[in-house]
């Protein structure tokens, strides 16, 4: 089996200046089922694909409400995601207790990133194996952040993580310039289409996806299944035909096989993403 001299410890550098354990954690995010997020000036929409591990089991929850003004969608190790969302909830509630006002989204994200960073610098810890899309609304408007296991965080107009997220990213990259002025419903529609892109020949139905919205005058909430199905029907979003979806799967497999984890189009070290 392939052995790497420098990947047995989080804190050990490779001569090339990489931390393999951290990169493996980033890899865990790509294995998880897809989650996407996009925002306008006033709203943020999160959506994710629900996949059951097993024919007999139900799927795991991937979108969590943190506070009235913040919610997260996760991809990767759900257990780690739950731990982090509990941390975020407690930070929000403590802030509300002390200041009677909502915690600014950007600050929560920095605290979360610092928490993740500590795990990359302690020999007795492991990085979190989860990527979080943090959607929130504060004084400065609507925000969408991506937090990753390396301790990096980025603000996005729209983003997708998890398996076959490249297809959703491609769709979002084509459309994101109009998002700022989008209506709430248009955002939801784009979210559903982006989610559909990540499906592999499967038909988009409300039982395999979750959609959540936060925005001005609208506290973070997960849309119920019936509403989602109505939206899918109204927008006439149906599954793509087999060929393009199959292609998307091939490219995803190749990336994983390469093991470098660097998205081909950027050629950057995985930690940058």
């Amino acid at each position, binding site marked *: 089996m392939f052995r790497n001299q420098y990947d047995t410890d989080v804190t050990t550098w490779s001569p090339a200046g990489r931390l393999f354990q951290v990169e493996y954690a980033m890899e865990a995010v790509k294995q998880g089922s897809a989650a996407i997020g996009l925002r306008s000036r006033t709203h943020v929409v999160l959506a994710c694909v629900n996949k059951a591990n097993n024919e007999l089991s139900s799927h795991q929850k991937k979108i969590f409400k943190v506070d009235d003004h913040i919610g997260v969608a996760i991809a990767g190790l759900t257990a780690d995601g739950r731990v982090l969302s509990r941390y975020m909830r407690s930070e929000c509630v403590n802030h509300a*207790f*002390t*200041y*009677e*006002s909502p915690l600014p989204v950007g*600050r929560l994200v920095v605290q979360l990133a610092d928490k993740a960073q500590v795990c990359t610098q302690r020999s007795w810890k492991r990085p979190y194996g989860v990527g979080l899309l943090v959607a929130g609304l504060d004084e400065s408007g609507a925000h969408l952040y991506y937090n990753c296991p390396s301790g990096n965080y980025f603000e996005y107009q729209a983003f997708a993580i998890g398996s076959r997220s490249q297809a959703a990213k491609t769709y979002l990259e084509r459309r994101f310039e109009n998002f700022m002025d989008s209506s709430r419903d248009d955002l939801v529609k784009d979210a559903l289409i982006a989610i559909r892109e990540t499906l592999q020949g499967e038909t988009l139905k409300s039982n395999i996806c979750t959609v959540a919205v936060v925005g001005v005058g609208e506290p973070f909430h997960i849309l119920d299944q019936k509403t989602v199905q109505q939206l899918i029907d109204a927008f006439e979003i149906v599954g793509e035909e087999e060929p393009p979806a199959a292609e998307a799967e091939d490219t995803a497999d190749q990336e994983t096989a390469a093991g470098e984890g660097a998205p081909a189009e950027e050629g950057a070290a995985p930690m940058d993403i």
Partner: protein
Amino acid sequence: MSLSKMPLVDANHAPDASSCTLDSQRTLYPYVTGTSVVAFKYKDGILMAADMGGSYGSTLRYKTVERVKPIGKHSLLGASGEISDFQEILRYLDELILYDNMWDDGNSLGPKEVHNYLTRVMYNRRNKFNPLWNSLVLGGVKNGQKYLGMVSMIGVNFEDNHVATGFGNHLARPILRDEWNENMSFEDGVKLLEKCMRVLLYRDRSAVNKLQIAKITEEGATIYPPYSLKTFWGLEAYKNPTAGAEGSW
């Protein structure tokens, strides 16, 4: 000492002076105190006034105590009660505002946040039976929203259109209830403040005739230089205060 009494005292933990006294130092009563603070909303924000006396018991010992301070960009804090405790509160707030600024992300604590923070600090200290001996008035403007509230030394807190601490609550609030209105101009507001402060000066023995007026608006806080009020003590009734109230000697 009889033997029967011996077991009551553990020889290894003999009570000594330090264990009894050192760990229980708390404010049992205030030493140097300031008197009333009066504040209310006006057209552009909040007006606040306090005199500059610092009383050591009933001795008017200090004459230039600043009891109104700006907090961050949006708030103004006035305090009556123990001056040293107020200075400690100012240290807490300096740190709070510093850490808030260090985020450097465009978010800042508004008057509501500072007021709630103070409420928590005051209530927490009273729960330790070690209260900060103050009545605090917090006013401010943020995003066009005027805010005025009070916190007591035991953490009681509320918002109102006009507030006053100590004697001011008895002597100034009735005047404010009669004459205050939300859309007062700055000039009318200052006149009303001076009316309140003059009544307090006449009737509150801890008040001194040197006061500061402060305002806070969307543009920020301004604390005006101290000045005195015109008074008239020549009334007949003042001349021989004991006439008609003869004592036994």
